[in-house]
């Protein structure tokens, strides 16, 4: 599964793309924490990532329920977006 990282997530990971075999959003977030070290862990754990991150699966924004319980698969393209910063 192709995972595109944007904003702060991209800066922390040092890469635009991540390839994953996770089967759920939560698994994917755990995988990112393991792969990209304490900075990623801190960023994701300082906030509820399910609440704060916008997750797009195959060009459709996931609902909170889908983020908490939804499955993802090998054929999906996932975009992970940090919160917006207007003003």
């Amino acid at each position, binding site marked *: 599964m192709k995972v595109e990282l*944007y*904003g702060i997530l*991209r*800066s922390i990971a040092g890469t635009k793309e991540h390839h994953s075999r996770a089967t759920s959003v939560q698994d994917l977030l755990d995988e990112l924490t393991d792969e990209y070290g304490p900075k990623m862990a801190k960023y994701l754990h*300082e906030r509820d990532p399910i609440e704060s991150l916008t997750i797009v699966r195959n060009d459709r924004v996931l609902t909170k*329920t889908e983020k908490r319980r939804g499955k993802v698969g090998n054929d999906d393209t996932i975009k992970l*977006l940090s919160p917006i*910063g*207007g*003003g």
Partner: protein
Amino acid sequence: MTISGEVLKYDLDNESYEFLNWMEEDRQRYGEVSLRRMIGGIGFAFEEFLADQPCTDPSRKFVVNTGFLTGLPRDGVPSGCTRTYISFNAPLKEKNGRYGIGYAAAGGLCGPHIKSCGVDGVILEGKFKSPVGVMLDASGKDREVELIDLDPESTTIETVNLCHDKGFKGSINSGAAGFHGVRFASVHVSYMPDDHVRAAARGGPGMALAGMNVKAIAFSGTRDRYPAPSSDDAGFKEWIKTINRELASGSGTEKYKRYGTWGGNWAFLVPLGALPAENFRNLNPEDAYKLDPEYLKENGWSISRKGCACPIMCWKIPKDPSGKQLWKMDYENVDLLGPNCGIYDPYTVSRAIQICDLYGIDAMSAGGVIAWYFEHNERQGKKPTFGDKEAQLELLEKIAKREGEGKILSEGVRKASEKLGDTDIAMQVKGLEGAGYPFWSNLGYAFALRGACHTSLGTYSVGLTNPEGVASSEWWADQIVGAIPTSMICQMNGACYFTRKVLIPELPKLIDNLLGVKADEDAIERSAFQSYIIARMIDNINGFDSGDDNLPERAFRRTTTPELLEDTKSLVYEQLMFNDEGKVTEETLDRYGLDHLSRFLP
């Protein structure tokens, strides 16, 4: 307490002034000083605009003020709190020759300097006979105000430098565009030479000020006139240091520090297919990457950080690979003068923002007006149209000077479209051109105090990120009413909008120690609602009602329909106890503790 309780009130008709003890006046009038007025900003200022009669001239009153937090860390307040607020009857928010309320704000060191003159702000009334600067000199033992002749045609930077050369470090000035009658003219809030890019812009404060024949309001103060915090408690001072560390390096402000608004929003809106382009008709422009700061950096550009005397340093200043420095780039200005006009060249966008800043034009409104004009021409089979870089820069000059087609465009997109046709693609609410977010995803625009403004009702992103809610009027009503307190407090307390996640939860403690007043979260929230309600009353007096709580035709796409908006309206009015016409009622005033203002109900 970190407010002086005084304002400078200047009567331009009679060339007279006084330092008014507004706290004492409030006590005499109402028996108490309200928390809302003490917090400051629009919470103080809007009440000054309540009147028995509608406003038929936006240049009769102009208020510049600060919040209780406006200051510097050395003054005992948190960092990131330097805001100056401007309140006025907005030239863009006109209905049948009457003008609703407007406000604008900017950071920088001018705000703290105003308070170093021993005042919380300035109230200007009337008109002078020729263009002048209102110069408040509080650098000596006595405070004096002098009017000096100023050239209305000078640029914002020339005026800043002239004031500075005369010893007035803080200044607020209108560029030439305001004196030419551009309805979306801005004012520039500055403290140091060559400091000319802090615009308080939305709604047309530059035209309102210029209409009074005031080119600048300038300040010369001393540090010992800054009002001291109520508490001298060492524990509180230590706590402020922890707050400052959080603002400087915590997660609550990280996105602004790292990316500013430009890079942060590009990295959010582009992958989401939500970046407005070509007058908001295209939300997925394929050339968007050409203005992506990350793409530019990969291609040899550098982007430096600056800020308004605060550790967040959200400003982003690009330099091209040859070392040439461009103008300051913020998200809204880049999108609205860039992709929204079909332009993806950073040099043109930078130059366009620079022209706006020097003439004193709201770059956001300018982008909205030109985007509409490009599409209008396209419909007519005429030129110029989207992507014409040279035409855009020429149009900006013509708008600023009100020459040629610039004369009609300088009226704002609503009036221009009413004269030339194509109102269906005029992307505005209550006369104000939209911010750089898709209209369909923000029903809050219809209820936002300034019109199509993203910060005066902060619901600009919730529709994009909550697919489970966007089709529900109940969800929207809760989002809209729920956003009012934070949106209003950010325009009252003197703190930068970007500090809100850190500072708003701490307001009870800050109010206690800085103002010496006990106020819980409910009392603070009530003050914020009061500001919104008073603004609504002023708009009601000037003829604004339910029919003006609307969205442009192009907003009605995806889940957003006219029926959804109407249903949401009913629920919002019900929650705020407005009547069916969207007007404030006795019940509203009673609920929010504003009974003493009932005589102003229209």
